């Protein structure tokens, strides 16, 4: 099957791959299987750890910007029900689009927020370490304190610094 592909089309799409975040992997297919072999268990690794840091980050950033859930949902053009789950249920896996929109609204690197949300593999072990530290320093129940504000600002700096 012959396909007509212009140079312009190929390069435009290649640049869009870069714009999307060059560290986004492009792949598809079941992770375990060869079609000739039936595996008795999935090769997908169980992910036991909840996205505590991601939900905490979203909550604090929202409060830092003095936004209600409704206002944030409206500003970021995301479903409010998902925002509630992100903040309240650390086991919730967010939609990729939601994370993308939140990154735009909070002006933090999309790729890093995707990694924090568990939607993409962290390429820097420091992000995981800093996320845990941030989650440990921030308390979701209390009002945004000076310490929470300092922790949030420090973590935002880390997200922006990491290559």
């Amino acid at each position, binding site marked *: 099957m012959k396909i007509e592909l212009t140079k*312009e089309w190929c390069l435009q799409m290649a640049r869009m*791959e870069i714009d*999307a*975040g060059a560290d986004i*992997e492009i792949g*598809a*297919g079941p992770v375990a299987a060869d079609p000739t072999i039936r595996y008795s268990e999935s090769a997908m690794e169980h992910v036991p750890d909840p996205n505590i840091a991601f939900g905490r980050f979203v909550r604090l950033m929202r409060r830092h910007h003095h936004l209600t859930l409704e206002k944030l949902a409206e500003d970021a053009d995301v479903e409010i029900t998902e925002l509630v789950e992100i903040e309240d249920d650390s086991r919730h896996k967010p939609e990729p*689009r939601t994370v993308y929109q939140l990154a735009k609204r909070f002006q933090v690197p999309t790729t890093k927020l*995707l990694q924090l949300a568990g939607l993409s593999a*962290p390429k820097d072990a420091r992000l995981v370490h800093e996320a845990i530290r941030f989650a440990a320093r921030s308390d979701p129940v209390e009002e945004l304190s000076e310490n929470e504000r300092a922790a949030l600002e420090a973590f935002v700096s880390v997200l922006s610094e990491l290559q």
Partner: protein
Amino acid sequence: MNVEISSAFLLDVATGQALEAELWDAITERQLADWEGEWTPALMQAIQNLNRAGIERRFWPQSRHWDWRRKADAFKGLLSKPGFSVMCQDMTQGMMIVDTLSAARLSSQTGKPLVYIEFLENAPWNRKGLVLAEPRFQGVGSLLMRAAIELSLNEDFKGRIGLHSLPQSDTWYANTCGMTDLGVDAQKEGLRYFEMTPEQSQAFINKGNQP
């Protein structure tokens, strides 16, 4: 095997230059030899580095167990399971196997035939941070997606395609490709299932034609 080769281009990330490439409508011994001799050693070295860096296994390349020779052998001769590959600088840069006997699940397209992408993989050196700090070439994924769409059009499936995304690729399919996310498929190892309607496939093609 009668192979049709289409001219294409990839972007050399380091130089920003366009490089001549080829889109093959097959996976032949040549591609499999590259997979065995180049992809696999590079991938194994990358995994060793990840392991030594203490990165958890759940973040390792999720296609690391794939055996392209077994996949190709299993589907050899099946007209409903064509393969595609991307070549550049005399090396295989990407491979894909599709299925033409699947049907759409999206409510507006339910039951209509589509091209289902069984497996799609980019060469290890084209994935940022895996082998090289920056990808060597960009554009491989787009070429393979275009091939799937063109096959769908050729089969009179109107450009409909579907796939189960590797988790690390969810954002690409959702945002850049503009596919519809039908959610987690418990029957497919919890992977997210995406589909592209005829309109979405035309929009994907049009993206590359924008000035």
